[in-house]
Each structure stands twice: as C-alpha cells, then as structure tokens.
C-alpha cells in the first residue's frame, strides 16, 4: 500500500479525541443469534467509537463474522438492537449503507473484469456521478498500489494483490465506517504489513475501522480497542495494555537449563527456589527449558538469574517476553486462541 502519508496522531491521542463524540459509530445491544440449536451470539454488546480502530478478536468460529453480518443487515438475529451512526440498521437502510464499506473475508470480485473495471463497478453502486467516480477509482488504485495492474484480470494477480483489489473495492467510495473481516488470511508477510499500514492510514484519514481477526499480533498492532469474543460472548474489552493488565502475568522468562534434565532433586529444589521469589507467579520445566511467569516488575530477570546462580544451575539461552493477547485469552478461557 502507499504509505507515504504520515499518520498524524497516536492511538492515545485519538482515544482522547473520541471521548468527546456523543454518538458511537456502532452500538450493538445484547445481540442473540442461533444457528439451529447452536448459540452463535450470546447477548453480545459492542460500542465502536467514531474514528477508532476496533478489533474483534476470537478464534475461528467464535462469532466474529456472524456479528459483522448481523450488523450489516445480512443475517437475521433473534433479539437485540443494532444502530449505526445512531440509526437502526436494516437491509434497506440505504443511507447508512452508503456510509459503510466492507472488505469481506473471501475475495469478492468479478473474474471477468479488470482491476480498474471491478473497482469502478463497485464504486458505481455507491456513487452515481461518473466524473467523481473516475477520481475515486484512481485514488483507490493508487492507495492499494495496483497502478501497474489496472488492466489485469483477477486470475493474473497473486494472492496479496488480490487482497489489495478486494480492499480497493470495499473502500473506493470513501466510507466513514469500514469493516475488515480477516483481510490478511493467506497473505504473505510483506502484503500483510502493507495491508495493516493501509488500514491505519484509512483510519488516519477519518474512517472508523472494525477489524476482525484471529491473528492477535495484528489486532494488537493496529487496534485502539479490542473486544475478545468466544462462543459468541464477550470475554474482555479494552486497549491491548488494559487487557494484559487483566491477567497476573506481566513477564514470562524462558531459560535454557539442560543440567536440570537429569537430577530430579536439583530440579525440584531450583523450581522451589524460584517460586519463593516474590515476583514469580508460576514456574514450569519442559524439555530443557524453564519458563518463569512473573508479575509486572523492573528486576524480574535479574532476580531469577541470581536465584539460579545461587542454586549452581548453569544457564544457556535466556529470553524475556511480555504477555500476549494469547496469554490473556488463555488466562480468561483456559484455551489457546489458536486452538
């Protein structure tokens, strides 16, 4: 994507700006949706503020896409209320639809049309004026960096370029609210970064973004606020830092200690010594690596290494990790996000 335009504000600044705005971009209240006997959305509520990037994070089948499709008026639901920009949203809410852009998870373009024709067609569904449309199409093509591929048919494009085309078709009419439903599935790292930067740029230009993914790193990287859902229920909501603060683990230290593999007594003594440290929350030994979970602290690594030296345990490779959203998900649900 073309990332030459600077992103003017930090996430914190943007969050501060938004608090002043009264009407949220999306307000979903206690949404319930069944697929037969299966409960897909379990009184799910959501409030997306204007101009933020709102992440909807959850494992596959957690109800992210169902929630989005209900919000967009495509799916029926059993109960609850959906409002977009303060207005009730339904299949015939054409004025609202005009302000919304959607980048679906599957590639939704015509294989028989060129890149330019595809973008132009989807633009024509929103913008009647041909002259204005031409400008918007050019802008969208430039934005996703498909200038060299204007006359290409989708079949000739790589996976990453196809994703860009899919995005261009969804944003060409400059919507105020854009839904990105797992836009980086099956995309190479380079294209993924370009897509994420493009989303941040769209947000910087004033669009509110709803971003669904099961890739926690992406959500953490670009979203101002994150709602974690599982089994159609909200598990947690907040900024990435707020979510991480919800769990006890502030730091996870991994230490290679091959000498502990043989002696059971030494291993037990060492683990007990580490557990005695005030900041240590949990200690595990697997293969030849000790994993020490600590609460947030400035000297955790030093304290742990000192304890190992006192126990005469030689150490190899040492690394320290801050907790991820997966840790949050694991702590809150007992299962891994990637399961």
């Amino acid at each position, binding site marked *: 994507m073309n990332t030459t335009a600077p992103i003017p504000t930090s996430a914190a600044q943007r969050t501060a700006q938004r608090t002043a705005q009264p009407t949220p971009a999306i307000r979903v209240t206690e949404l319930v949706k069944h*697929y037969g006997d299966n409960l897909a959305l379990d009184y799910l509520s959501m409030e997306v503020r204007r101009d933020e990037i709102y992440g909807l994070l959850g494992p596959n089948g957690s109800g992210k896409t169902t929630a989005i*499709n209900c919000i*967009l*008026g*495509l*799916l*029926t639901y059993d109960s609850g209320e959906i409002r977009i920009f303060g207005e009730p949203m339904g*299949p*015939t809410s*054409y*004025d609202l*639809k*005009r302000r*919304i852009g*959607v980048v*679906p*998870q*599957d*590639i*939704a*373009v*015509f294989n*028989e*049309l060129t890149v330019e*024709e595809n973008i132009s*067609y*989807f633009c*024509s*569904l*929103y913008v009647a004026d041909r002259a204005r449309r031409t400008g918007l199409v050019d802008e969208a093509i430039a934005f996703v960096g498909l200038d060299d591929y204007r006359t290409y048919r989708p079949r000739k494009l790589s996976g990453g370029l196809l994703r860009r085309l899919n995005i261009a*078709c*969804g944003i060409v009419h400059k919507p105020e609210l854009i839904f990105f439903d797992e836009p980086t599935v099956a995309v190479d790292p380079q294209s993924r970064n370009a897509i994420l930067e493009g989303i941040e740029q769209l947000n910087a230009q004033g669009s509110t973004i709803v971003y669904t993914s099961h890739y926690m790193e992406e959500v953490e990287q670009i979203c101002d606020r994150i709602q974690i859902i599982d089994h159609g229920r909200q598990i947690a909501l907040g900024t990435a830092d707020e979510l991480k603060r919800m769990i006890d683990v502030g730091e996870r230290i991994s230490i290679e200690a091959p000498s502990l593999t043989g002696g059971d007594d030494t291993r037990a003594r060492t683990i007990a010594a580490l557990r005695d440290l005030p900041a240590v929350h949990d200690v595990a030994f697997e293969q030849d690596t000790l994993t020490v979970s600590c609460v947030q602290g400035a000297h955790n690594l030093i304290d742990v290494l000192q304890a190992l030296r006192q126990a005469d345990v030689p150490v190899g490779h040492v690394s320290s990790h801050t907790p991820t959203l997966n840790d949050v998900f694991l702590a809150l649900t007992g299962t891994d996000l990637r399961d």
Partner: protein
Amino acid sequence: MWSTFLTTLRINLREKSSLFWLFCFPILLSTMFLGMFGNLSATYEVTTMRFAMVANGDYCKSEGAQQLVAAMQRTPVTPQTCDTAPDAMDVDSGVTDLRDLLDVTPVDSTAEATDLINTDTDVRGFLTVDGDGLLHMTISRATVSSVNDTMSTPGLPVSLSILDGAIGMFNRQALTVAQIMTSDPAVFTNEVFTAAVQEAPGFTRQVRLTNFKPDESARYYYALLAMTALMAMTFAVTTVCSAQANLSALGMRRSLAPLTRLRQLMGGFLASWLCTFCSLLVALLYIHFVCRISFGGRWAATLLAIVVASFASNALGTLLGSLPKLTAGTKIGLTTAFSCALSLLSGLYGSGAMALSDWIQRNAPVVATINPTQQVTNLFYDILYYDSYAPFFRTVGILLTMAVLALALATVFLRRQRYAHL
C-alpha cells in the same frame, strides 16, 4: 442499474464457457446438422442429367418420342439428322420442373453413344428409339455405381426414376395406341375415347397445404434454437446467483450496496436478455444463410420469436437462480440438465426424438405445452408452416405466460434480503 447492465453485459461476453456454449456450440451443431441433413432435401430434387440421344432415322420418325425428350429439356436440342423440330409436350410441372431433367447430346449411332458414356462419366446414359417408336434408356456403368452414392450425387436416383417412369408411361401409351389401331381403328373417331387415351394418368401430384414448402430437416434446426435459448438460462442464473448474499461473496458485497436489489437484478436481467437475444440471432442467421433453413421470409415475426424466446429463457433462468437451498454450481448444473432433457422431448436428438416429440404432442399435449423448448421450436414452426399468424401468437402467449409465472415466483424467492445462514 445502467452500470450493472453494462457490467453484466461485459461479464457475459467475456465468460469463455458461455461464449462457447451459446455462440459457438449452436454453430457447430448446425454445421453438423448441415453435414447430416444437407443432402436430405437434395435427394428429392430433380438434377439435370446429361444423356446422349441416338438421333437416327427411328428417332426422327417418332414424333412422340421427340416431343417427350424435348419436354424434359430446358433448351430442347434438335438433331441435325431430323428435318423438323418437334413441339415440346406441355408438361404440368407444378413445383418440380421436369424441363430440368435432361441435357441432351445428339449422336448418330448407338455405338457412338456407347463410346460417349464410356469415356465421359458425366454422361449418365443414352436414349434410343426402336422401329416401333418406343423409347429405351441405357445407363452407363459409372452411373450405376454412383446411384447409391447419395453424398456425391444426391438427386440422381430420383431423377433417373422420373426419367424411367416417363419413358415407361410413354411406351405403354404408344403400345396401347398401336394395338387399338390394329384391332379397332374406328374407335379413334370417338372423341371421348381419344381424349381418355391422351389423358395423363393420375400419379402422385405435389400440392402445397402449408405456408412454405416443408423441410424435413428444419425441425432439427428449430429444436437447436430452442436448446440454445434454454442453455442461455445460464446468463440469468449466474446474474441472480452473483447478487444473492447467501450464494457468493460477490452477492454479499453487492447486497451491502445502497442500491435496491430490484435495480441490480433488473440491470442484470436486461443484459442477460440482450446476450441471449444475440446468441439466438447469431445462430438463426447462421442457420438461415449457411444451412439454408427457411423462416418463411417472415423476418419481423422471426425476430419477435427470438425476442420472446430469449425473454422466456431469462425469466426461467431467474427462477432457477432464485431457488432457495441450492448452490450456484447446482443451479448451473440444473440449467444444463433441463436444457438437454427438454430438448429430447422437443425432438433435437434425431428421428427417434422427433417421433417422441410428435407422440407427446398427440397424446400428452399438456406436457408439450409446458415444455419451453417445445414452445420455442413451435414458434419457428408456426412462422414457417401456417398462413395465419394465430398459431404463432398463441405460442408467444404460452411462452409469455410461462415467463410471467416464473418471474412472479422468482420475486417471491428474491424478496428475502436477510438470511438465517450465510
């Protein structure tokens, strides 16, 4: 709606499989029919045969034989050996013109005629007149062997048969007259008797009951047009499927646009209708100008027929496309299956299928009435064979009724805008 119309048009015309099945396939099949049935009508047509005529003294004496031979030539040839040119017989040719039967080369003797037919294979045989004034026909070996080859000489057997019949009739009359002259010559003073003798026997006479000369093979081409029309349902099926959120990601994206579904579907329908019309028009022009199949010269009605056929086809395609709980692939498969199966009932697949089609028309007319391929076939049939346009407009009415019912049902299915599942 306009941009959807243009886009659908572009998509339809770029979709290679549609282009093949709807533009190339009918032409290929017509060409195949042309190869199969092209000689069918030629088999019954009179072809001009080169014959030698032994113009000896017997021939010059037999005024009757001269008159008969002259009657079967477009430009009668008078042999130099004969002093006078006979008047050609007045042949009531009707539709078949017997003056195209012979192209005569006079020769002086039987030996010369034999040499000629042995050296020039284009000369089919020779005619001689014996001392009694009776005509005899001899055909060459080459002609004998080519008589069974209907591909290279399709009209030869029937032309030889006509010539043989004419000679036989002439000889029987000549013998009868000669016998009466011998036994009771006075009877020729009886005018009623002489008129009866001169009168040609009542053989099979060709009469035209239909608006246009019947063409055995035309039905196959009409059934092919009907199949093409039904195959073109694919256009409408694809158009509807690509606008339904529960059938494709494209449909989902289009459902999210601030444009009513009716306008999107209308644009797609009009484009598909135009494509079907063009596909039928191309097939029709090929069938008429290359395969020489007539539409009775009623071009306005023929164009109206393909307008109606393409409209009905797209209405049925819209219905098929809107059926709930079926995937897009299944609907396309059903389109092909319906087209092929219904074409069987309208007689596309050969004489057996034609017999089945006729049987259905006679014994189960309701089945024929609700079969769209049969009705499209009937459109062209009505144009060609009936003097009145009433049968044609009746068929138009049946197809339009089918189309309206299909669209009404499709509207019921397509009114749904939100789904329980996607």
